[in-house]
């Protein structure tokens, strides 16, 4: 944004244009781009998800609206827009109306600090990572508002579960991100992305290729999936148990807004993951002259979509986990693991030479994982013996 402003000011064509106009133009252009590009990706991600799930289940997926179902997102949008908007009689009208709005806003705000390419970032906040965690947690507010205002026991149950889940997974997720901040020495997402540049083909310096980085990556992806309530962590909406959880009582476009918020949060989290662990826009050829930014943007979106694809793939494979397993996993396995991971990152920083540090931290983390999965495993209940039934 600032760069755009400087660019416009320095350009002789706009010399006659007042500064304030240039400023507002440089504000509006990134916002417009974010609002145009990411919802478009969202729309086609829904199509990709449905197609991929179909293929996983030996089906074709949507293919009726346009060739290969290419217009399916538009049809879905038109359908949801024209549907009746039902508000339960006993609902708290204002909160019920506000909840889907609150659900979307933080998800969109997250894109403000994601660098798409070198210098291509809407706002270069120097506390970018902190901003991400502060904003992404706000989505739980929307879930709880929606569940509470619906005055429906399933909605409230879903909302309660959502709160428990998001609060639990927030902690290991933040701790998983701490190692990246430690390594990059900055909270700025741009600085983190820059710290992963260089090396062979701009690849080898990605944090995911450090032992602590890999563990942090896995922990962060798990946390991000839980945060955005994706399978297998879709306990808040668990349609087979509590119908649709917090959005049971939502219909029409409010329901669509909830979906939009959830998907955008998943996209943003994938973008943050790509930035923090997978090197962001760094990749072969992103330091070329003139077209480097384009190559960087390509790598960024390729990484983002790969993460999204893995999330879809997981959704098509794993079953939903139970509430007690969900919380037990967060507190007994992920949290200790992320603390050990912080320790490993510190060790890595101080041990020289680096190959030795690599091996030491890898062994440390592997032992920690073995121990924690044993200790933190869910208690096995003895098989019950029946006196008469057998």
């Amino acid at each position: 944004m600032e760069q755009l402003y400087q660019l416009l000011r320095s350009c002789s064509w706009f010399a006659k244009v007042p500064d304030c106009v240039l400023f507002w133009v440089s504000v509006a252009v990134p916002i417009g781009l974010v609002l145009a590009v990411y919802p478009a990706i969202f729309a086609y991600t829904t199509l990709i998800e449905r197609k991929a799930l179909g293929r996983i289940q030996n089906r074709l997926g949507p293919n009726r609206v346009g060739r290969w179902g290419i217009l399916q997102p538009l049809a879905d949008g038109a359908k949801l827009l024209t549907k009746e908007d039902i508000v339960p009689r006993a609902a708290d009208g204002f909160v019920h109306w506000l909840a889907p709005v609150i659900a979307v806003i933080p998800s969109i705000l997250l894109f403000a600090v994601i660098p798409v390419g070198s210098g291509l970032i809407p706002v270069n906040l120097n506390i970018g990572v902190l901003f991400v965690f502060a904003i992404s947690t706000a989505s739980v507010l929307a879930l709880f508002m929606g569940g509470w205002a619906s005055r429906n026991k399933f909605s409230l149950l879903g909302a309660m579960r959502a709160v428990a889940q998001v609060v639990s997974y927030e902690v290991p997720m933040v701790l998983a991100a701490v190692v990246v901040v430690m390594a990059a020495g900055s909270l700025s997402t741009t600085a983190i992305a820059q710290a992963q540049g260089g090396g062979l083909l701009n690849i080898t310096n990605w944090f995911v290729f450090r032992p602590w980085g890999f563990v942090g990556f896995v922990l962060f992806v798990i946390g991000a999936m839980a945060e955005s309530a994706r399978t297998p962590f879709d306990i808040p909406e668990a349609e087979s148990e509590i119908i649709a959880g917090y959005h049971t009582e939502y219909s029409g476009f409010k329901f669509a807004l909830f979906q939009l918020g959830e998907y955008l949060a998943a996209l943003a989290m994938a973008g943050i993951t790509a930035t923090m662990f997978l090197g962001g826009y760094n990749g072969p050829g992103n330091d070329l002259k003139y077209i480097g930014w384009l190559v960087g943007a390509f790598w960024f979106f390729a990484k983002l979509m790969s993460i999204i694809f893995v999330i879809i793939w997981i959704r098509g494979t794993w079953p939903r986990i139970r509430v007690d397993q969900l919380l037990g996993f967060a507190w007994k396995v992920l949290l200790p693991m992320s603390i050990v991971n912080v320790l490993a990152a510190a060790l890595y920083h101080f041990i020289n030479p680096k190959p030795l540090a690599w091996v030491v931290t890898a062994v440390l983390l592997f032992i920690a994982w073995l121990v924690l999965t044993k200790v933190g495993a869910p208690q096995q209940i003895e098989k019950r013996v029946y006196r008469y039934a057998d």
Partner: protein
Amino acid sequence: MGSLGGGLFKGMAVTARNFFGSYFDKDRLVAVQYPEERIQTPENSRTFPFLVYDNTPDAMRCVACKICETECPPQCIYIVMDRDEKGKPMQRPKVFDIDISVCMQCQICVEVCPFEAIKMDNDYEKSQYGRFDELIEHLPDLLKSNDYYNKIKPTEAAAVDAKLKAEAEKKTKKAPAPAAKAAPKPAAPKPAPAPVAAPAAGKFVIPEDAPFTPEQRAWLAGFLSSGGSAGTATPVAEASASVGEAAEADASATETPAAEPAPAGDTPWHDPGLGMQQRMDLAKERPLADKLMAAMAQTDCHACGYDCRGYADAIAAGSEKDLSLCLPGEAETASMLEQLMKEDGKV
């Protein structure tokens, strides 16, 4: 590996194989694009019954004998026999309705049809926008050609065609015999056309080990000896009916005395449209054989192995003991026959 989550990755591998395999391997993409693609239904699959016609829809095989209507467990068939302008039965249905919302696709109508006229279809696209009249199939909807039958069920249809052809050949050979037999019949109540249970009497011997119940055996014996189809019965029925028409006027005018046996051709009750009470009133002063005949359903369906006249004569002559063979007449006829026989002191 269990605690390390190895099973999770095994699952991921399975779904990945499905995902990528679906682009190369037809077995991994089993979905059928229904309106454009259809799976060929197996030959023996069945949905609802239809009526077979030969060559033209006028040459339908159904003679409106109502056996299927009687036998249908959920009672989804409704038949009205067609008549010409004189009110004479034409041995074909005027109305033939099947309520497919009631039909349970049991195929019993096909099993009982002596004329191979009703068969099971395999057309499953029967959705309609209503639950009532829309789901009732009428005669024009039901009539389908024998070619269609051959198309949907080649094996079964070939067997049926072969059987009908064989019967037609027998009929042409046998044709003089029933005609001769039919002629003297009106003159006096002769013994039954063929003692049905005795194989020696008929020229067509049903093997002893053939899988038939005694009733079926009796019916088949009668059916074969009568020439193999309703065609031979038609002249008799028509003749008797037309004589009946003429005789009706003076019969009602001049109260024929009971002692004098009325001309056998004079059978005013031979009309499936009349009720049991009306028919019995018409035959009130007649000999036993006529009364028995009036108790029949008057469809000449040959389900008993005779036409209505022949069955009544056989009972009266004592050669036929079974009083429950009249399928279209149902229990009403059976109980009336029993009552008549009791009144006559024969049971």
